[in-house]
């Protein structure tokens, strides 16, 4: 059974007088435990798709089913609960709380989740055991992104959503971060969706959704996803 299903999903925005379709009649499905990449130029609707899946936005029409539950049409409160228990987010700009240390940033996510993986444990997994008491301003970009990954995974979510996770990093650091995302989620059996405009990244995915103008132009299945080290950009 498909873990994530989009059925004729539309998302319209009204800007001024005109209506813009950010996501236009999208249907696809993804299975559990896979690594997926949504690829497209900026403005193609990738982030909207991610937001819809992450429960940060609701579709104008259509049906989204995650893990057997329909999340399209959920109330604001239920969506929050859904984000809390099912979703882990990794952002381009990390979005760590500057007032909290690395450990505390991870604990922040843990605080509201019932079944967590342990903040210190996760930081160890991302290789930051020596920096857990540092504030974000004392960490490099790559380190901050690793904290962010630890924060996303510590909640023990079903799905990890990454919005341009390497966008603010140099290629070497980016590669390390990608490998971390892949390794950890594979170990923990998480479904990962990475949104990027960076085509080579898609080579590491099980499934690639090519987006253009709010539509899915092509769905590509990689029989043999490449190793991160083999990818060059």
């Amino acid at each position, binding site marked *: 059974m498909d873990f994530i299903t989009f059925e004729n999903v539309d998302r319209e925005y009204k800007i001024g007088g005109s209506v813009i379709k950010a996501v236009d009649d999208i249907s696809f499905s993804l299975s559990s435990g896979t690594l997926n990449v949504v690829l497209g130029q900026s403005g193609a609707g990738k*982030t909207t798709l991610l*937001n819809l899946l*992450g429960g*940060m*936005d609701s579709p104008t029409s259509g049906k989204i089913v995650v893990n057997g539950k329909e999340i399209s049409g959920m109330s*604001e*409160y239920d969506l*929050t*609960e*859904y*984000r*809390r*228990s099912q*979703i882990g*987010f990794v*952002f381009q*700009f990390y*979005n*760590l*709380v*500057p*007032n*909290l*240390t690395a450990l*505390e940033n991870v*604990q*922040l*996510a843990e*605080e*509201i*989740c019932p079944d967590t993986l342990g903040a210190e444990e996760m930081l160890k997994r991302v290789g930051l055991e020596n920096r857990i008491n540092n*504030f*974000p*301003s*004392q960490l490099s970009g790559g380190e901050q992104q690793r904290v962010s990954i630890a*924060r996303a995974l510590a*909640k023990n979510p079903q799905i990890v959503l990454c919005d341009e996770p390497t966008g603010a990093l140099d290629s070497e650091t980016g590669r390390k971060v990608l490998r971390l995302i892949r390794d950890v989620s594979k170990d923990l059996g998480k479904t990962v969706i990475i949104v990027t405009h960076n085509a080579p990244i898609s080579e590491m995915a099980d499934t690639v959704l090519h987006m253009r103008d709010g539509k899915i132009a092509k769905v590509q299945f990689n029989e043999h996803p490449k190793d991160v080290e083999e990818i060059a950009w």
Partner: protein
Amino acid sequence: MVKGALFIKSLRDIKKSKSQFISIFVMATLAVFIMTGLDSIWYTVEKHSNNMYQATNLSDMWVTVANPSEQQMWGIGKIEGVELVEKRFTANADTDLPGRPTLQVYALDGPGTLDQPSLQKGKFGKSGGAVLDSKFAEAHNLKIGDYISIKLNGIWVRLQIDGTALISEHVFAVKNSAAITPNHSDFGFIIIRTNALESIYGQKIYNQISVKTAPDVDLTSVVQEAAAFVGDNLIGITLQKDSGSVSSVNSRIQQFKTLSLVFPVLFLLVTALITQSTMVRMVENQRPQIGILKALGYSKGSILWHYTSYGVIVGVLGSILGLLTGPNILGRIMIYQLNLTMEAYSIKINYLNFLFVLIIILICTGGVSFFACRQLLNDSPSVLLRDKMPKSGKRVFLEKIPSVWQKMKFSSKLIARNMIKNKGRLIMSTIGVMGCTGLIISAFTVRSTLSEIGDYTYGTTFTFEQKIILDTAKTNSKYLKNLDLDGITQQIEESAIQVIFPDGVQKMEPISITTKESPLIHLQSIDGTPVYLPENGVLLTRKLCRERGINKGDVIGIKLTGKGYVYVPVAEIAYVASGQGIYMTDTYWESLGETFKPTSLMVKWNSQPDMKFLESDIVADLATRESMQEGLSSSLGVVNFAVMFLIVIGASLAFVVLYNTGVLNFVERTRDLATFRVLGFHHEEIRYLVLVENYFSLFLGMLSGIPVGRFMSWIIASSIDERLDLLGNISLRDVLISGAMTIFFSFIVNRIIADKMKEIDIFEALKSVE
């Protein structure tokens, strides 16, 4: 136009942070509104009353003496510094009007120049006729040409009203010590010529010497010399500043002078604090822009002025609005509440003080802005243009106590760190809440002390049912004692007596002489224990003792009728809320060689009042305890207005600071809060994170507001009326009500902020680097 572009930038920046700048504007406006408003009140009263004193040629002192002789007049005229001496007659008279109001009669000589009426209508003939109090005439609907009958020396005289007037001695005149505010239908004045007295007394008579002195003369020595010259015939000397109306007016002037200094302080402080937090944040956010301006070649000075101008523009605009509204709204409303009878009420503005407060406002706004951006200017453009310095987290002292810190919840840790980071904001909102609670406490305290004073005076001190004012010519103490009325009675003689105090001051003070056994007057000390009239010596009221620096055991001189001074010990001190002065027993008074001549009989009837007695001709007037208590509390109208005013400005203080702290707290942290939303925090949980700081300052502010309220209550209470001894003690009830109101205000503010918080656009907030 280089300056033009920068100016447009300031206006747009101000528009962008409009809620903060509106707050600064509101605070500056309120500070100037209150300051110039309160200032205009005393300034207007002072100007108008002084003009009136000058125009009517008000005497500087009055020497009361039975039948002043030519020799006494000549002698006083010779004292150094005395410019003019005249004589007049003054007494209180009954009238035939409904409600039996009292008129104070002034009989002046035709050629006299001192203490003249300021005619409003009609004329005042040189040799006859009468001029009536224009307010009294209005209250009784009397017109020029009408007749009025007054009773002097037991004889009714019919007088035709030739004119209506105002006089300096009745700007604020009350009938007796029981009345707090003037009642024009119950008490007024009438001025006649001395030859009208011939038909009553058989000749022209006088009882006061009016004295005009040169300015800057030492009045104490003039009083001493005059007293010495008049000798045993002296009844008393009253200085202009001690006379009823003038001293009441002066105490109001003083009251508003004090208030106009105390109240704006809070608002100025909050103005400075809001400006500080706004400008520090703006300058920090505009780091790169400052870099650009510097790179473009703008001088340090012009950039500094650019940022200083934000505060200056808002401060000046607020001050102007405050100046336009303060005197015209606050001043205009309050000045009528004072119940003064003056020629004109046109509001006068004390521009000197406005200039003073404007400078302070400019320091609080412009000065604070200047310091906020001065630091950044020393950096070079390249440093400024580089990425914003990352905001660093700071550890708080609590972390040094791991046992506490580790037990704390994350949200609590976050809140603690955030509060320490924004100390200035925390102080600002705490001070705002403190001011709010303090103002409301003082409002309620003043209100309850004033209403309690009625209960205390006519519930605890006086317990009579009726106070019968006697016709002293037709009765005496012995007669009253043998009346055998069906009830408890107590005789009392109330008048004024010339006193020499230990500090050398000589003046007339009210005196009450009553029987040792006192079933209807129960004096108490400040702590509530009963105080009895001493066998030997006199009792003074607490407030009088304080004013003159008298302690128990000190000796004061009192002037006996037709004799010199006798020195008597102050044997007791009692707290009397309304009606300050000297109390003694009839036996002690008679042991000094005087006669006890009761002026009133207080009665508590066993059953029905004895109508036969009440209708007898020894009864001149009658007052019930209820009516006297009502008269005392009628002044509460003013107080209700003041209470409203204090609550409104207190609330505005709390609103502005809490709104500001709340809004800044989430505007600055939109990104963090959006992250929380993404992580799955509910609105309520995020609201708690943002608003708990407000609750913290609410709590701190309310606690520190209690002593502030105590202090302000004390200041207001002690300046309300010189005849009232108000303690201004805060009660638990008033504190709780004030606290509840403060909490209510903060609740409203928090609701507004919570609604605003829901509007955060999480994607927008997360998309961009700040």
